């Protein structure tokens, strides 16, 4: 059936979770491109046939004309699917700049076509140039800010620690008010916990 392969591409997009990239399906993609060109060959040969019979393409409505219309519509539909596939992927790729940063991990890079890889780099550079024109980094403050200080309870004897210009003794069960950024390392090691009064 005409157009089935192309719709498989979109099926892949639909099946992926929002914001997740699937591996660029170059096989199916190339096959759909090939289908497009085959439709065109058929379309042109039907037109040629009509011309050879001295029929006016604008007004004639015979089987060759309708055959040509079917090829035209199938081609146009395939094009739409190909474009939707690339465009939607490009949207996800754009969003990676905000979510991950300038450098994509290997496992994501492997999912991109060559052109998509280029696209990411160029788009990323466009964002950078906007930010430098504005002299403002927009890749920080992605979520609403919280109090930069946090109350914590020490779970294990940590001892004397210097945090910035602050010397502090972190004994077990003691409660302190620390910079969130200072506390995070200890929390992730299980040495402290956030303490809601």
């Amino acid at each position, binding site marked *: 059936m005409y157009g089935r392969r192309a719709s498989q591409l979109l099926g892949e997009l639909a099946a992926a979770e929002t914001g997740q990239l699937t591996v660029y399906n170059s096989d199916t993609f190339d096959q759909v*491109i090939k289908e*497009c*060109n085959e*439709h*065109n060959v058929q379309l042109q040969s039907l037109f040629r046939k009509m011309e050879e019979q001295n029929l006016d393409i604008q007004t004639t409505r015979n089987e060759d004309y309708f055959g040509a219309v079917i090829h*035209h519509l199938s*081609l*146009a539909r395939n*094009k*739409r699917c*190909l*474009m939707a596939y*690339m*465009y939607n992927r*490009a*949207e996800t790729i*754009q969003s990676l700049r*905000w979510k991950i940063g300038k450098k994509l991990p290997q496992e994501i890079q492997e999912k991109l*076509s060559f*052109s*998509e890889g*280029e*696209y990411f780099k*160029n*788009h990323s550079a*466009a*964002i950078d*140039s*906007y930010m430098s*024109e*504005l002299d*403002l*980094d*927009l890749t*920080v*403050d*992605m*979520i*609403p*800010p919280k*109090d*930069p*200080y946090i109350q914590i309870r020490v779970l294990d004897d940590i001892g004397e620690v210097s945090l910035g210009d602050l010397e502090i003794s972190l004994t077990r069960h003691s409660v302190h008010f620390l910079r969130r950024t200072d506390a995070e390392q200890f929390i992730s090691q299980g040495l402290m916990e956030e303490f809601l009064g």
Partner: protein
Amino acid sequence: MASGSEPWSSGVAEEDALIGETTDVELLKRAWRNEKAAPEILQFQAALVLRAREQIQLLEGTVEEFVGNGVDDLAVSLYQMDLDRTQFLLRSYLRLRLQKIEKYMIHISKTNLWNRLSEQEQNFAKRCTDIMEKHLEQSVLSRLPFGYQSILKQSISSEEDDMVPEPQLDTFVFCKTRGDVGAFQLDDTGDEMVDLVADDLYVLRYKSIKGLVENGQIDLV
């Protein structure tokens, strides 16, 4: 759904007004909310962004001074929080707009939405469009038969640009009117009217209240 007739009566709304609808933070928050909820890009709030940036810079300077002068940690950390909140709003607002540009760049560049962008956003949009065109050109369009290679049109037989992603203006949005708008026509035929009362919450089609959003009579929530 619920539609009582008594006016919004708690002191809560008034207190809101008390903190000053006029602070730039309040204005920025409104711009941010509207931008977030509107399907299409809105007018860039140039003067507001400028003022917000100036105030951020000023306060950054003050905080540094405070630290240097040994002003107590408490005040410094509170000012820092105020700074963080404003910075978040500003950045998020600018980011939202970039993301809309990323999504609808071609549509924006060929309609009068273009005039809603700041100069820097226009540069960004131009660059993005070039990059997107190049990408689609080399991955799809150049590999298609003649007559089907346009990025804007499905084929040469399309009369209008039928390949350009556009924001869906007929989507529904949640909104609150700031003052009484009165009877308001919701559709082109005038069959559907709604009485928009101050501070009531409505779900309406964006297209029909677009004008009210643009002139600031209604806020999206």
